[in-house]
């Protein structure tokens, strides 16, 4: 996000090497494109979803990548509004990761709905009582904000800077970026929360229903907190992986440690509140609806999910990243951040899949869902799209302002 006028020349790998790297991901992307074509042309009968599992792996991944993409808004908020200046080294990368996550999620959602051409109906015939309406509005608007935040990065490309209009556009946008950081924070706060609210308000689904404050169930706040804990963890992982793959120093090592520490502190706060929420739900909310805590956990969606979410992918990474010596060590830093991200994926999986697996009707049975290759191919395509876009951004844009200095 630098506004320097003289951009340093950065060393990049040869074009054939870069194309070889891209070719693998392009193949995956094409596989996903074929899967998407089948789903759009033949319909959602190509998936493993059914009238029980109306949400599948796509919604799980959507929720997960939107949470993991929170690194963009949260880093922006910390850097532009709270003036956490150490984030300047990677704010550009955080914005690109956020853009990838949100655009990927919206692309996947488009395939997921049965009538993609009617997608605009949720704006045209918006139901203000629906949490999903809020989610759709906020993620769409936030993608616009992310695009605006992305533009100054693109206009820093040496070729593009030769065009005065684009150069000035980028510099002017950069000057008012604090406004977009605030707008992005506001929008993200609400859609992260509303994604939790989408499940927390399902008062006829005892597994996900939560009490709360006014119209907001506790999941509203827990989803926000978990997203801002996991978002920086993904940013840390992406920057670390980019350094390893490119064999270049992109940020100061302590910057990654500080970001990981921030993630761990937020994760601890989240885990405490999540534990309180779970205890109250298990002892009061669910029994009032005629369910015992143990009714919700049947094979294969057993108690291991809760254990994994709380301990292996919750408490363990939080402790690792809170220990200075551990987070200063690359191995433990990666394990800590990776586990934090996996914990969030597991949490979103539980709210999406397990909510639907638990029978509410007494005459129904516990059901199991398994995605088809078409569903996996589209998930792979979104990941490929992310890798390709980030690779292009790294190669052609100036994502890391201190790269030249650190590799001098």
């Amino acid at each position, binding site marked *: 996000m630098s506004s320097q006028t003289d951009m340093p020349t950065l060393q990049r790998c040869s074009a054939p090497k870069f194309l070889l790297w891209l070719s693998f991901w392009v193949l995956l992307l094409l596989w996903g494109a074929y899967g998407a074509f089948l789903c759009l042309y033949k319909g959602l009968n190509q998936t493993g979803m*059914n009238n029980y599992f109306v949400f599948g792996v796509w919604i799980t991944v959507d929720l997960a990548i939107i949470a993991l993409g929170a690194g963009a808004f949260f880093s922006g908020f910390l850097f532009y509004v709270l003036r956490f200046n150490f984030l300047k080294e990677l704010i550009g990368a955080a914005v690109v990761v956020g853009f990838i996550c949100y655009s990927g999620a919206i692309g996947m959602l488009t395939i997921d709905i049965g009538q993609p051409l009617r997608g605009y109906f949720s704006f045209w015939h918006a139901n203000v009582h629906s949490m*999903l309406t809020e989610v759709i509005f906020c993620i769409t608007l936030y993608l616009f904000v992310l695009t605006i935040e992305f533009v100054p990065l693109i206009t820093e490309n040496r070729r593009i800077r030769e065009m005065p209009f684009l150069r000035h556009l980028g510099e002017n946008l950069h000057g008012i970026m604090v406004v977009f950081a605030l707008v992005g924070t506001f929008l993200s706060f609400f859609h992260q929360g509303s994604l939790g609210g989408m499940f927390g308000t399902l008062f006829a689904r005892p597994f996900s229903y939560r009490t709360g404050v006014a119209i907001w169930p506790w999941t509203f706040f827990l989803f926000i907190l978990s997203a801002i804990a996991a978002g920086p963890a993904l940013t840390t992982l992406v920057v670390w992986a980019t350094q390893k793959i490119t064999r270049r120093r992109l940020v100061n090592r302590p910057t990654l440690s500080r970001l990981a520490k921030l993630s761990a502190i937020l994760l601890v706060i989240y885990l405490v509140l999540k534990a309180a929420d779970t205890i109250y739900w298990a002892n009061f909310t669910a029994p009032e609806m*005629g369910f015992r805590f143990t009714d919700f956990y049947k094979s294969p969606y057993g108690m291991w999910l809760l254990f994994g979410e709380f301990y292996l992918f919750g408490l363990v990474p939080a402790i690792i990243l809170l220990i200075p010596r551990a987070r200063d060590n690359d191995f433990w830093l990666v394990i800590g951040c990776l586990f934090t991200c996996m914990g969030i994926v597991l949490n979103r999986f539980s709210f999406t899949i397990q909510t639907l697996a638990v029978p509410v*009707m007494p005459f129904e049975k516990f059901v199991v869902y398994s995605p088809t290759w078409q569903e996996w191919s589209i998930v792979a395509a979104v990941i490929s799209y992310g890798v390709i876009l980030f690779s292009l951004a790294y190669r052609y844009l100036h994502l890391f302002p201190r790269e030249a200095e650190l590799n001098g």
Partner: protein
Amino acid sequence: MSTESPQQSVRYGMVIDLDKCTGCGNCAVACHMENNVPFRTDESDKSRNMAWLRIYKVKNGAEYPHARVAYIPRPCMQCDRHTPCVSVCPASATNYDKSTGLVDQINTRCIGCRYCMAACPYMVRCFNWWDPAWPADAEKYLNPDVAPRMRGVVEKCTFCSHRYIQAKNRARQEGRNYLEKGDYIPACVEACPVEAMHFGDLNDPEYEVAHLIKSPRAFRLLERLHTEPKVYYLSSHEWVRRWADNDAVNTQSAYSQQRQGVES
């Protein structure tokens, strides 16, 4: 869009007497025919088939001579309080009519997000996983008053709301601005050979349903979720009533009761 406990004058509801129901399936067939509900050549995958009215067969789990069976026809419950599917639909494609209490689906507005299906605890809603297709001869028998739904949208029982519109039109032609008893009856109720299904205005004492819902045999599915269904059931069997409410905590678990073969 608000559906909070309306005090409207008309609240159409249904009462199904499980002591009378033989599980013949006539109601489900009539529903299919009346509403042009599509079917596939292979209907063995019940997790993806279309059924606006599904009949559940439940057993008390006891051995002979105590074994008991009940059939529970399950149309849309037409929930009255903060109707789960209505409040979640992002495109306002599910409608709660305050003047009748009917929960209807605007199929041409549905975007197919299926959030309503996740919200509904009664598994009432079906998604059109395939394009609807009927054998050539069967197309001649489609009901011209109900538009078939396309692939990618959600559909559900509407209490044959098109019949309500027809009844209103007929009444208007006859110079009435009200419906008389019997003017509007859903196809399933009309088709029941043992008169186990009753339909009418739950607020109007002229209708039998208004009295039946006060019967000590009356209960509703999953009452503790407080969705306030307008479909009531009648059963003289305690195990059926208890089972219908997932009464697993405050009383002995319905499932364990089934295993132990308790017949109340």
